[in-house]
């Protein structure tokens, strides 16, 4: 009897399908993701171009506001900026410049936009990177413990705090902290002008200036991570494999660390990366409040113009960052979840 049965249990072709080489699948997956990321980026370029052309207001008029100018001078300025050409011509020029790494010239700063963006990217990376890392560590740590001891006092306090911070407008929280810590921490900028030029003093000075902006951004962002981690761990709390783990005699913290958290991380990772746009959003507010010389502040300054080339460039960089984060999320998910690897 058993001979007949074993012959039937597992259809052989199903086995063969699973034995397909994983390597080629991974490469195809990567290429597919990169391809769709590039497509998104191309759409962002087009959208950015159109969007900033639709903003009401003549840039030439804005630039010359308050100064006596003759119509001839206005026409000359128009020609220099290229805004007198038809839309399609402007677009072709824009794309051509983009391919050469030329993002145009800022109306306000009278400097190449590419230079401005590169200069301001560093401070923003420092601020957003530090705050995001801190927020992830804090959010996951508190989220995991809140879920594990659901409805305990710890859970209520940590979730309550997180919700309060989350619901505060970031600029308002920034201003509050600014007032509260006036005198303790610097109120703006990234470094004092009189700091000695050696690396050590400079680093310390930047770190000193970083404290408040970073705190504000972290406070605003970690709450989301906490809530997401908490709810995805709660989803896993009744999973049967946790009963298996307990039945094996594992300590409670091992059940959590080895079995529950790796599974709960899956939705969390996706959301953490998808929320990156929100972090950038927060960065604009925080950089403005603390005059942190990053892309956010640059964007804010450019808005007052409006300095269209700068806005367009900043839009491109920020959108590219969000797209990049999405690709990273997909890749990381593949590492974390073997089930995704199989498809």
């Amino acid at each position, binding site marked *: 009897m058993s001979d007949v049965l074993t012959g039937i249990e597992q259809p052989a072709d199903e086995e063969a399908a699973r034995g397909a080489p994983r390597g080629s699948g991974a490469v195809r997956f990567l290429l597919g993701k990169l391809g769709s990321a590039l497509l998104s980026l191309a759409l962002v370029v087009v959208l950015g171009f159109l969007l900033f052309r639709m903003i009401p207001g003549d840039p030439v008029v804005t630039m010359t506001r308050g100064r006596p100018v003759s119509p001839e001078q206005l026409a000359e300025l128009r020609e220099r900026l290229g805004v007198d050409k038809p839309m399609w011509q402007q677009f072709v020029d824009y794309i051509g410049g983009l391919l050469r790494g030329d993002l145009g010239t800022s109306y306000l700063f009278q400097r190449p936009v590419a230079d401005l963006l590169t200069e301001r990217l560093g401070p923003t990376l420092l601020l957003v990177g530090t705050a995001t890392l801190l927020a992830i560590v804090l959010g996951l740590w508190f989220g995991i413990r809140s879920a594990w001891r659901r409805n305990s006092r710890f859970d209520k306090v940590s979730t309550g705090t997180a919700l309060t911070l989350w619901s505060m407008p970031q600029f308002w929280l920034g201003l509050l902290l600014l007032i509260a810590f006036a005198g303790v921490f610097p109120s703006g900028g990234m470094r004092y002008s009189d700091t000695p030029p050696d690396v050590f003093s400079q680093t310390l000075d930047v770190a000193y200036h970083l404290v408040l902006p970073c705190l504000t951004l972290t406070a605003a962002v970690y709450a989301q991570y906490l809530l997401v981690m908490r709810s995805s761990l709660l989803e896993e709390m009744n999973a049967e494999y946790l009963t*298996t783990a307990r039945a094996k005699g594992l300590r409670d913290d091992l059940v959590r660390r080895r079995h529950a958290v790796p599974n709960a991380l899956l939705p969390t990772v996706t959301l953490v990366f998808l929320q990156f746009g929100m972090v950038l959003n927060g960065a604009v507010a925080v950089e403005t409040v603390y005059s942190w010389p990053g892309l956010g502040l640059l964007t804010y300054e450019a808005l007052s113009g409006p300095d269209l080339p700068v806005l367009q460039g900043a839009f491109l960089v920020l959108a590219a960052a969000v797209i990049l984060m999405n690709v990273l999320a997909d890749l990381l998910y593949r590492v974390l*979840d073997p089930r995704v690897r199989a498809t």
Partner: protein
Amino acid sequence: MTENPGTDGAVLLELRELSVRYRAARDELPAVRGVNLRLGAGETLGLAGESGCGKSTLAMSVLRLLPRSARVDGQVLLDGEDVAAMRWGRLRAVRWASASVVFQGAMHALNPVRKVYDQIAEPILLHDSDQRPDEPPAVRHRVHELLDQVELPAGKAEAFPHELSGGQKQRVMIAMALACDPRLVIADEPTTALDVIVQAQVLELMSRLVAEHHIGLIMISHDLSVLASTCQHIAVMYDGEIVERAPSEQLMRAPQHAHSKALAAAFPTIGDPASRFAPATSNPLPEQPSERPVGEPVLRTEELRVSFRARGGRTVRAVDGVDLEVGENEIVALVGQSGSGKTTLARTLLGLQRAESGRVLFRGTPLPTSTSGLRDYRRQVQLVLQDPTSALNPRHSVYEAVAEGPRIHGLTTDEIGRVTRALEAAELRPAERFMSALPHELSGGQKQRVVIAGALALEPAVLVADEPVASLDASVRGEILALLLRLRIELGLSALVITHDLGLAWNIADRVAVMYRGELVEVGTVEDVLLDPRHEYTRSLLAAVPGGTHRAEPANGLRH
């Protein structure tokens, strides 16, 4: 297996006046009431009962794995030591080393993101102080040995759970349970989610390993025949109490308690004339007219083929040249194990899946391809799904659920009358009592009746039912089958019932079609196919039925 279990005198597990209550919103719900139980070393005991009778709670209380809301009274003595009095450290040491568990859904009981090797090795590293973590070769050897015992190749150690079939997962679970050489294994519905042939293999494997290692076994199931094929004794639980305990053969042959009788009757013995066209039901069935009109085929397929594009561009043919007929006033059972293409065939019959070639004919006309044509067609051919809980929208009342179909088809006149008639035809009487109920207020059997009423509201000519009783309790199973049979007798409703359960076919079907790898290997009357199978696959399906057919010895083939 020894003739007289427990001859070595050692008591492995003893429950004394065990009661478990769950704290609910206001009051306490008793789950287990004053159970006394003894299990000797190497003894095997089956625990039978329907869902909610407390059998799983009882089993989980042995290792104190109950949720926090549970209050336990009485004693659980494992090797003479009271589990309730153990400190956490001692309890953790006892868990898995003295007693381990094979959980019901191996699919969910294994951690989806960890490799099989890690999951089997985990308790070994935890409990075996000789195996320090820096000695992986010894652990690896042990894991491979365990996989070999459950007849899996060593290579499966590197697999993730989703890469294994249901049977393989359950084998991994068993290997895991044996990892620390426990003296007691608790198996909670170990084969419920598996199909017949895999179930037979897993049961055989468990019986062999338990006997070889002289392990005490408590196996929980709602299916008496499964227990009878594996365990020496069976205890029947009802409403938190053990109502009967007897040697398996005796309990199967002459159950004493009314509830044991009901459980025994729920799964018919194939070949037993008493259960032919007589599912276990409390309402008597109407007389069968002695002469049945031989009707035209209502639903017919001609050389039907359906393929899917699999990963890597290969084509998998799920349905391969099927000719099937469902006649007027006839119930046809389509049987086969999971993956045989039964459900694909059903979907194609309903026009939910496009056929690659061949035709589906309804009363001689091919299946329409236009949207409106398909809609009219589906009014005639209705689908009943396996799990009523997921088939019903939890926020729609019974009335809404039943009235939805007629509304889609524009049958708006006398909606209340139509819904009432459908509910009453599905034996939800009086219909008014059920109309405003929400699904969660109904029992499993009532929910399935609502699903059937939803189909009946359109006054269809054919019902296609996909495993209509697989997710229901034993006592409800008979009632739903009786309903299908009654609908056939009273309304002349034809039905195609898809099932892996040959007993169902014996209970209600006129003809059986056996499907294997996309092909119909055998079609004929129930008596011809099930009592005199011609195809080897039909024979192996029949051999896998626990308890066997009428002429076979119970548990034949499971004892060597």
